[in-house]
Structure formats: structure tokens, C-alpha cells
């Protein structure tokens, strides 16, 4: 079978895609819940403006952390993201432009232990080779 005859499901994919999928899936839940929480905060009539601002800023830091973690995940494997990654990651990265000044923090560090645990699990299962796990190596 020629490559151009292969369906999307049949084409070989980067083995690290499984890991990226496992990491991006809970981030999708976190980001989605943050979105719903922000919506509820904006609509809550009982909140003062000060409370609303503080809560929305907190949600914004969650969104920023998700966006930063996506960048970290796309860097797994050590290679720069291809054009496809840049194009498809755009929606998430653009989230940062909606954040209030100063809201973008370094919260990605808080997710790193989880990511490292996942990477270690994938190595133990043989899904990826240790040399592919940039997260486990110091810069």
C-alpha cells in the first residue's frame, strides 16, 4: 500500500503522541472547567466586583497554566514543534491574550510533577525510551 493510500488511522504516528494525548486530556478537562467556572463567576449576582475580579484572576492563572503546560507537552521529545503543532496550538496560546496583566505565571511548574510521573510511567511500560523523555533531563 502506498503512503498516499493509507487512511488517517493506518498511518504510523509518533509514539510520543500517546503520551501527549494522555497529558493533554486532563488539561482539556481543567481548561474546560475553568471556562465554565469563569462563566459562573461572571454571572453570579451575589459577588461583589472585588470578589468577582479576584476569582476571575484566579481562573485566569489556571488557564495560563494550561496554556503553558501545552507548550511543555509539545516540547516533549526535544524537537521543536512542527508547523502543524504551531497552527493547532494557536487557539490555546491565544488564551493568554485574554488574561489580565500579570496573570500569566509560572504555574506550569506545578504541573511538572504530574507530567514527570506520566513520563516515568510510560518509560516503565516501554511506551517511550528514556532518551525521548526530555522532561526527566536537566537543561
Amino acid at each position, binding site marked *: 500500500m502506498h503512503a498516499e493510500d493509507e487512511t488517517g488511522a493506518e498511518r504510523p504516528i509518533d509514539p510520543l503522541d500517546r503520551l*501527549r494525548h494522555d497529558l493533554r486530556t486532563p488539561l482539556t478537562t481543567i481548561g474546560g472547567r475553568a471556562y465554565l467556572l469563569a462563566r459562573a463567576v461572571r454571572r453570579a449576582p451575589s459577588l461583589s466586583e472585588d470578589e468577582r475580579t479576584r476569582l476571575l484572576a484566579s481562573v485566569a492563572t489556571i488557564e495560563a497554566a494550561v496554556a503553558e503546560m501545552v507548550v511543555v507537552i509539545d516540547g516533549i521529545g526535544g524537537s521543536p514543534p512542527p508547523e502543524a503543532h504551531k497552527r493547532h496550538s494557536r487557539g490555546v496560546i491565544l488564551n493568554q491574550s485574554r488574561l489580565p496583566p500579570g496573570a500569566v505565571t509560572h504555574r506550569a511548574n506545578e504541573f511538572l510533577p504530574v507530567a514527570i510521573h506520566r513520563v516515568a510511567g510510560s518509560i516503565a511500560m516501554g511506551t517511550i525510551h528514556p532518551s525521548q523523555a526530555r522532561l526527566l533531563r536537566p537543561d
Partner: protein
Amino acid sequence: MHDRQRTPRKRVFAVNSSPDFLLIVREVLADEGYAVTTSDFAPNVFTRIVMRHPDALMIDVAPEESVGWDLLRGLHLELQMSDIPVLVTSTSPTLLENARDEATRYGTHRSFLTKPPDLDELVRTIREMVGDA
């Protein structure tokens, strides 16, 4: 209130293996006035889609999971369903590129969104797909 209260609500059918993602999609799109049906990759999901005949579909493609691809192919082959706009979602930019290539090869128009998505963008895309933009 919106005119959508007086007109039949547009129907969106979302297929994904993540119950959390489906719940979020349901809450976000229902708030926009859409009637949302969700399903995991159950064996009868294609039949359910055909029976529901939604105005827009969201189908996820995931690593090592063939159901999403089977659905996309089945929708292309089913004449009555081939005109339904489809938003393909995935955590994998690589798989989305594969889906884009496949859509180009089939000559079908699809929209694409990486997870985690910008949910405002998701809403805008669905609006465009069903002609509400």
C-alpha cells in the same frame, strides 16, 4: 431572550471518549442554545447519528482508536450524511493533519480543533458550521 427560543434549536452531536469533555461541550453549547447529544465510541454511535441527523457533528480522533476514523469515513460514504458539517477534534496535531489530508483526498470540508480547545473558538466554529454566525 434570544430568537432561538422560538425556533427549533440546532442539533449538535458530539462523539468523544472523555465523559469530562462531553460534559463541558454539552454545558457550553447548550448555553448557546444548541440541543446537544453526546456519545462515547459506542458500537451503535453511527446509527444514532443517522437517526438524529444533527446540524453539526463533533468527532474526536485519538491515538490507537479507530472509531473516530470509521465515523468520518462512514459519513463520507453515506450520501444522506455527507452534507453534515463536521468538526474534528484531537489532542494530537499530527492526527488532525492526517484528518485534514484525508478530508482533502475525499473532497469533503471539515473543521479542525486541537484539545485543549479555546472554547470561545469552539462556539464560533459551531456557529459558522450551522449558519448561525
